[in-house]
């Protein structure tokens, strides 16, 4: 380790603390600063991800500038002989030089954290995402430096070394482009080798073990090859005249058999390359090929053994086998890494974490799912769509994402138009193809613009990207049958699914529609009690402010008897007249208000509950596992132990903490806890009931039905539905009532774009800080370090 440090100690100042090194650093930082300032000004986003994309490509050019002299210069000047004859291992030399190069790059890019500080002035940058991007950039640089070092070890010409490193770096950066022209495994390999797409994962703010293993593993492989390359400079074993011509027995026969095997090999390669099916005949050919090659080897085994026993051949064979082994280990590592991986989203709002529902859905794919993204403006929306598609593809290899630029690939667009029989050229949309089915999603549909009521006026909120909900909804429709109809009961002051104001339910209705549901709002007509909602699967009674009449209760009862599902969301202090309906289900509604002295939401009072305790043994509770629900006010929903009905299964599935109380309080009255009167927690806030009863009358269907009773209705209104897992509770409840077990789980979330509102002064500030202050500061530090070094010497 000391030797590595010693090598590093000489090399890194030789690269950076010299006038040429400081000049390159200053230019690099000024260029990066310019890119950063212009990208932030154009995109109006407090992010470094666009900068990291540019730097990823710039690295391909910059890393060889660092590495070209590391070994090539030593070989050219003869100083390598000094190193090689000192008591050092080759790996010490290579690792020392690699770490020196990497340290230089890290020092060059370290001032970029200044960009984040500058962004703090104009907005709130996402430090987690920036950190992930920075890690990705460093890993990419490590790989490019290892490649550069390898090229530098092959030649004593610095220019050649740099050009070779740039070529290899570019090839790896553009391999995904070549993948479009390849098929099968080769396509997968080319896609996997693309360094820029691996960097893209980090740029988005995600740490993915596959990309980390790719960078670390490939860097290690190139370092190993460099060690071997240096070693090979010393082999120079040469060949004893006549030593290569091993005395072969049956020379003519051996040549003929090898030639025959070669022909078969050529044929097999041709079959593979032409994409034809690999049949049993080809396996037979392969077997014959091996047999043909083995015969001469077996006949001459003694000569071969003698041949390999010579020291030089033994070393060469060992090195070749070692290199092959390292390649095989690399391949195995990459294969295992691609199978077993872990992703961690470092972004502040976890924007790239797919919901449990989406992940569960993607696992059920059986055949390839193609996502065609036909790009258009605005670019940032398509950037988000691309990221989303990449996240989907990261969860299942069967998902193939194709990005198409209509201006550059008109032929591809025509092909799509013919394939899906589209009336017009697709543009600015996604086409999802699964089996024989396909769906189109306009890109605009992935953006939700919330409307809210403010002082009696409807105002537009900031647009939010809701792509996951849209895409997952489409996939749900393609993979599952049509979910059916949800009817929101009206006529008793219930919350309205069409109302877009804070107290409306338009957001949940919209999400239900995106999930494939048909949403309806109905009153119970006096003459049609028996057929109320007979085309629906679920009826939602969302916080009635007036009592339901007996007829209405009867209509709901009949709907339940027919096997329907009813979601009752009941506000405290409001008479609803539903006790009679609920009682046969072993559920009782408390005439109280629930408070929780430890788990209450934010700055609100203890009546605003933050409920995170769910029973995982109950279906909805399990689906809500890890989530929480904010209930502005709630009443107790308890299971009654009197007159238990055996045909009904009832479960409390959510409750407060032990510090919760069910308090008797009048409306608008400040609550006070009376331990003798009030009930201490945990207080149940929701009950799931399921019924199955065979009827004695012949010919009658058994009684079925599901009932979900929640002690609050406001949690689902537009004002609160985006909080925590409120939407999840509502949607999971509806899906459980409709017996759609497969889709229960945490739901996709809409994410807001981290846009900035920048003034001209802000833009100028960013420009000065990033293009002038940071490079100049770095240059000053570099110059003072250079002077200090000279003085010390």
């Amino acid at each position, binding site marked *: 380790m000391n030797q590595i440090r*010693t090598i590093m100690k000489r090399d890194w100042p030789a690269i950076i603390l010299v006038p040429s090194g400081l000049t390159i650093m200053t230019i690099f930082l000024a260029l990066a600063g310019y890119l950063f300032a212009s990208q932030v000004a154009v995109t109006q986003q407090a992010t470094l991800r666009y900068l990291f994309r540019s730097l990823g490509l710039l690295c391909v050019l910059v890393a060889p500038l660092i590495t070209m002299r590391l070994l090539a210069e030593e070989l050219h000047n003869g100083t390598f002989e000094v190193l090689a004859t000192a008591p050092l291992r080759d790996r010490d030399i290579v690792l020392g030089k690699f770490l020196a190069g990497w340290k230089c790059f890290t020092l060059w890019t370290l001032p970029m954290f200044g960009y984040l500080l500058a962004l703090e002035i104009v907005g709130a940058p996402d430090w987690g995402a920036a950190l992930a991007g920075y890690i990705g950039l460093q890993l990419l640089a490590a790989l490019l430096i290892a490649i550069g070092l390898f090229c530098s070890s092959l030649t004593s010409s610095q220019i050649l070394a740099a050009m070779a490193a740039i070529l290899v770096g570019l090839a790896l950066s553009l391999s995904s482009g070549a993948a479009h022209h390849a098929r099968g495994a080769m396509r997968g390999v080319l896609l996997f080798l693309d360094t820029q797409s691996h960097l893209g994962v980090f740029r988005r703010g995600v740490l993915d073990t596959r990309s980390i293993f790719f960078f670390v593993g490939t860097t290690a492989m190139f370092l190993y090859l460099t060690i071997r390359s240096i070693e090979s400079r010393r082999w120079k074993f040469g060949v004893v005249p006549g030593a290569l011509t091993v005395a072969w027995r049956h020379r003519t026969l051996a040549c003929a058999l090898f030639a025959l095997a070669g022909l078969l090999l050529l044929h097999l390669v041709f079959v593979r390359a032409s994409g034809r099916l690999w049949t049993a005949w080809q396996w037979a050919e392969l077997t014959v090929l091996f047999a043909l090659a083995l015969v001469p080897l077996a006949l001459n085994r003694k000569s071969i053994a003698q041949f390999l026993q010579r020291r030089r051949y033994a070393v060469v064979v060992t090195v070749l086998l070692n290199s092959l082994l390292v390649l095989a280990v690399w391949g195995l590592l990459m294969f295992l890494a691609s199978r077993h991986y872990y992703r961690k989203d470092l972004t502040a709002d976890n924007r790239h974490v797919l919901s449990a529902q989406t992940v569960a859905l993607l696992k059920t794919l059986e055949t390839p799912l193609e996502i065609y993204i036909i790009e258009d403006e605005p670019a940032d929306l398509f950037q988000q769509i691309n990221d989303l598609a990449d996240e989907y593809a990261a969860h299942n290899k069967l998902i193939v994402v194709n990005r198409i630029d209509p201006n550059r690939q008109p032929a591809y667009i025509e092909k799509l138009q013919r394939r899906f029989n589209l009336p017009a050229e697709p543009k600015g949309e996604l086409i999802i193809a699964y089996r024989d089915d396909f769906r189109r999603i306009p890109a605009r549909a992935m953006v939700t613009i919330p409307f809210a009521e403010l002082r009696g006026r409807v105002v537009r909120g900031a647009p939010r990207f809701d792509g996951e909900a849209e895409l997952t909804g489409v996939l749900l429709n393609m993979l599952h049958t049509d979910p059916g109809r949800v009817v929101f009961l009206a006529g008793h002051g219930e919350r309205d699914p069409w109302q877009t104001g804070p107290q409306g339910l338009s957001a949940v209705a919209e999400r239900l529609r995106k999930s494939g549901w048909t949403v309806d709002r109905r009153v119970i007509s006096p003459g049609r009690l028996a057929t109320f909602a007979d085309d629906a699967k679920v009826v939602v009674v969302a916080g009635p402010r007036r009592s339901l009449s007996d007829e209405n209760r009867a209509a709901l009862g009949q709907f339940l008897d027919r096997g329907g599902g009813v979601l009752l969301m009941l506000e405290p202090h409001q008479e609803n007249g539903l006790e009679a309906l609920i009682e046969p289900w072993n559920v009782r509604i408390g005439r109280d208000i629930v408070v929780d002295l430890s788990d209450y939401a934010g700055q609100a009072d203890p009546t605003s509950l933050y409920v995170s305790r769910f029973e995982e043994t109950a279906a909805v509770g399990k689906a809500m596992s890890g989530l929480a629900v904010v209930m502005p006010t709630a009443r107790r929903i308890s299971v009654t132990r009197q007159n238990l009905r055996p045909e009904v299964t009832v479960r409390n599935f959510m409750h407060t903490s032990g510090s919760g109380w069910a308090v008797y309080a009048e409306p608008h009255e400040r609550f006070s806890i009376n331990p003798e009167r009030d009930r201490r927690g945990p207080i149940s806030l929701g009950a799931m009931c399921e019924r199955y009863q065979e009827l004695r009358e012949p010919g009658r269907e058994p009684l079925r039905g599901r009932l979900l009773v929640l002690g609050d209705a406001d949690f689902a209104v537009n004002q609160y539905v985006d909080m925590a897992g409120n939407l999840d509770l509502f949607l999971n409840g509806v899906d459980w009532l409709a017996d759609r077990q497969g889709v229960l789980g945490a739901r996709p979330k809409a994410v807001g774009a981290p846009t900035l509102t920048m003034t001209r002064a802000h833009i100028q500030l960013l420009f000065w800080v990033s293009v002038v202050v940071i490079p100049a500061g770095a240059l000053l530090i570099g110059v003072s370090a250079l002077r200090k070094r000279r003085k010390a010497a």
Partner: protein
Amino acid sequence: MNVDTPAFEFEHVSKYYGRHVGLNDVSLSIRRGALVGLLGPNGAGKTTAIRILTCYMPPSSGVVRVCGNDVLTHTRVAQRCMGYLPENCPLYHDMRVMEYLRWMCELRGIGGSDIEKAIFNVAEPCGIMPWRSRLIRELSKGYRQRVGLAAAMLHEPEILVLDEPTVGLDPIQVQQFRALLSRLKERHTLLISSHVLSEIEMLCDTVVIIHQGRVVAVGAPEALKADSTRHYTLECVSTRNLPVLLPGLLNRVEAVTLDGFEEDGRRCIIRITGHGADPRRALARLFTEAGIELIDLHAERISLEDVFIDHIRGCAREEGMIPMASDPDKRGAEHA
């Protein structure tokens, strides 16, 4: 290490570069404390031998031991026993002298306060103290050579290997460098490869002549000279029948050939090459008996250069590379 262990030894060492033979079955053993000069024409295999010795490259076959350590199996130990100044003295020109020496100390595993001590021990004898703060690129070739030598000696190695150490130096620098090497001779086993034969002759107590990958002569310079071919000049009073008598007279002496015959009025100068024992006594007797009056008979002074050329020619003659027309016997006969 046993005192009797040779400083380094080659046992049937061969080295091949492709089909070209670098070293061919070289066997050699050098005692500790020797100052060995490695001589040979360009491409003879001097640098190959040195590179194998310094563990820069492995031999194709055979065994090389440094202080008893096999260079293939105990490479690091062998390298610690040696200090090496490669040909052309490669140095990091962007470093300062002290910085470079300090760095070399760390590379050699010298740490802490020992660094300054080690540097002082070598910088003083090498005379680089006044230049210690200079950038290496600013030094003259001679001082760069001294810095390289100082770096090679930092860890007080048993053996110092110097490949062409005086190439490119001016005569004064060569003289200074020679004086430096003479002082080092007391503390190290020195192996110097050089083209400058006078230098080797002056400095070394053992000379190894290498040609076409083979060791053609090993020994002390004086012993080599003694074993080598010698030239004699015989001056006598000219007589009319001397050219007729001369071949007959020389035929009666063992292992001599006529190199030249010059007649200058009353005096004759005859040049003779002797291939064996000293023929002067026999020649004097024969000439006196034949009635030829001898004025002078002396052996020419022989240099290492003569020994070297003699061995190289001998090898070339064995391989038929020097045409027989250049054979001194023939030239003498023609003259006669």
